């Protein structure tokens, strides 16, 4: 090995023994540092993963939705609108959807009711999401009763439950047959909640939306990209809000680290004098102290990030779940797909490791340029 490598190794060894000499200070610093990285990384990892999850889910959804508007409010759309849409060139398929919300007094929760077209559900049966299973302790074969729009009792037998894998979008789902849906809400045949349209050429989506808008002036057109943008901004807003709340603690950490890292004790100054007197160059001393700062900040960064990763992807982000997921009564329980964005890691690294290392170097540099004869005085 070259002398340069030996020198770096010797310096690193000495750095580690230097840090172990100030156990209290080093450990205290690392605990606070790790906690800050953990919190920030948790928020970042969670928001990023959930945004990505939403994007993946939405990728399978129809490109265009058409809703009828009456007096500025969403209203049921007649089947003749469906026929009109099918006649527009470029539309690959169009179907009327039935969906709505049902309040369950027994669970004090809202379910999302939908009528799936494939596979169809038999009348009198229901397929329920994971959160509904938990809210009603319902198992396949159990009966669930609800009051219809006219006060009559409608009974469902639980056919099966939806697996937790897709809980992000299916937690509060209540899938029923078309007949049951219409009976429950009193919706006449020939009326739908909205229309889902898929387009042959993705580049024509906007053009086709314009054509639908022109043909059906009483409707509003919702594009998949718009929904995606809405999701993005919702999670951006939540992440931002949480980061603002955390700003206080980040600031406290900045002050704490500046104080701890930059305040050289008389003992440390004396040591720098000794090192210079026995033949260390100013650059060697600065390198040593930089290494100390890097060992602390890098270890804290790695441990904090690892803990955040485990927290988000293996323990369901318990600490931030209520804020980041939303305010629904039925929280979905699911595991996010692990996803790490390099740019995000680099940003967090830059804003945590870099300032700390700089904070340590400036005062060290001031101390390191003192004359070596100070130890003789």
């Amino acid at each position, binding site marked *: *090995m*070259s*002398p*340069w*490598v*030996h*020198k770096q*190794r*010797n*310096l690193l*060894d*000495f750095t580690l*023994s*230097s840090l*172990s*000499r*100030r156990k209290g200070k080093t450990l205290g610093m690392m605990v606070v540092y790790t906690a800050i990285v953990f919190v920030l990384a948790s928020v970042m990892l969670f928001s990023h993963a959930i945004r990505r999850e939403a994007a993946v889910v939405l990728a399978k959804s129809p490109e265009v939705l058409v809703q009828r508007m009456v007096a500025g409010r969403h209203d049921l759309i007649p089947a003749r609108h469906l026929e009109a849409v099918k006649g527009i060139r470029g539309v690959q398929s169009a179907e009327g959807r039935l969906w709505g919300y049902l309040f369950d007094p027994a669970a004090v929760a809202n379910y999302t009711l939908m009528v799936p077209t494939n596979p169809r559900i038999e009348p009198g049966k229901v397929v329920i999401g994971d959160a509904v299973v938990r809210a009603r302790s319902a198992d396949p074969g159990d009966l669930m009763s609800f009051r219809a729009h006219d006060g009559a009792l409608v009974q469902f037998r639980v056919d099966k439950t939806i697996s937790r894998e897709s809980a992000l979008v299916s937690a509060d789902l209540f899938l029923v047959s078309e007949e049951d849906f219409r009976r429950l809400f009193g919706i006449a045949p020939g009326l739908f909640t909205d229309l889902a349209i898929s387009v042959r050429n993705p580049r024509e989506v906007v053009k086709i939306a314009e054509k639908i808008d022109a043909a059906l002036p009483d409707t509003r057109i919702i594009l998949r990209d718009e929904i995606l943008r809405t999701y993005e901004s919702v999670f951006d807003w939540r992440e931002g809000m949480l980061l603002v709340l955390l700003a206080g603690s980040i600031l406290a950490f900045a002050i704490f680290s500046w104080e701890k890292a930059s305040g050289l004790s008389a*003992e440390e100054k*004396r*040591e720098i004098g*000794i*090192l*210079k*007197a*026995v*033949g*260390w*160059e*100013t650059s*060697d001393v600065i390198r040593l102290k930089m290494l100390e700062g890097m060992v602390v900040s890098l270890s804290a960064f790695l441990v904090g990030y690892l803990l955040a990763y485990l927290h988000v992807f293996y323990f369901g982000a318990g600490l931030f779940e209520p804020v980041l997921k939303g305010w629904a009564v039925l929280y979905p329980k699911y595991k996010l797909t692990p996803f790490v964005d390099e740019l995000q890691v680099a940003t967090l690294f830059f804003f945590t490791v870099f300032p700390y290392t700089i904070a340590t170097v400036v005062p060290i540099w001031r101390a390191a340029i003192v*004359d*070596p*004869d100070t*130890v*003789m*005085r």
Partner: protein
Amino acid sequence: MIHLSDVRKAFNQGKSNEFWALKGIDLSVKAGKVTVFRGPSGSGKTTLLTLVGCLARPTSGRVRLRDRDISGLPERFLTDIRRSTFGFVFQQFNLLKGISALENVMIPAYPLGRDRKDLARRAHELMESLDIHAKAQSNAEWLSGGEAQRVAIARALINDPEVVIADEPTANLDSERSRQFLGIVEALKASGKTVLMTSHDPLVCDTAVVDHVVSLRDGQLVEAR
């Protein structure tokens, strides 16, 4: 080996508290000899030692190491000369607390990039020769005055310097420990090292191992024998 001509050193120059510690010193230090700078407190002997040992630069005058004028060299070059030519034993020993005696001994060699195993072997040999090997793994703050000094001597010798500089080496030792120290000086001299010391201890100045005694008072050389 070391030649000083009209060396002056001022502290706080140009300020109201300006103080001239050395006022024109002419001196030659011979290689392989033991020289003691003697004088009362404030006479300038420690300042003289710092100039000779490249720890500081003179305000005026010349310091030559062999034939090289080192009085005007930038700090980087002085550091290079200091660690290859001089080994220091400070009055308070100045060992780093919280690390072992062995690591203290190895510290001056770290920036040279020597192999760690070779370095540890050399440190162990030195500690053994100074009869302090049993304390190699003890932390510096647990050592007695005599032990700490021997660790400091081992540290001074780790880079195999030509010159060993000791500032008031017996100031913190009892007579028995002081005699032990002089025994070490004798061994260093026998191995060809040049030894420079400051002291006002008669035990040191009058001992047979000392070749030259230079007396200082108020920053001036008053006697050299």
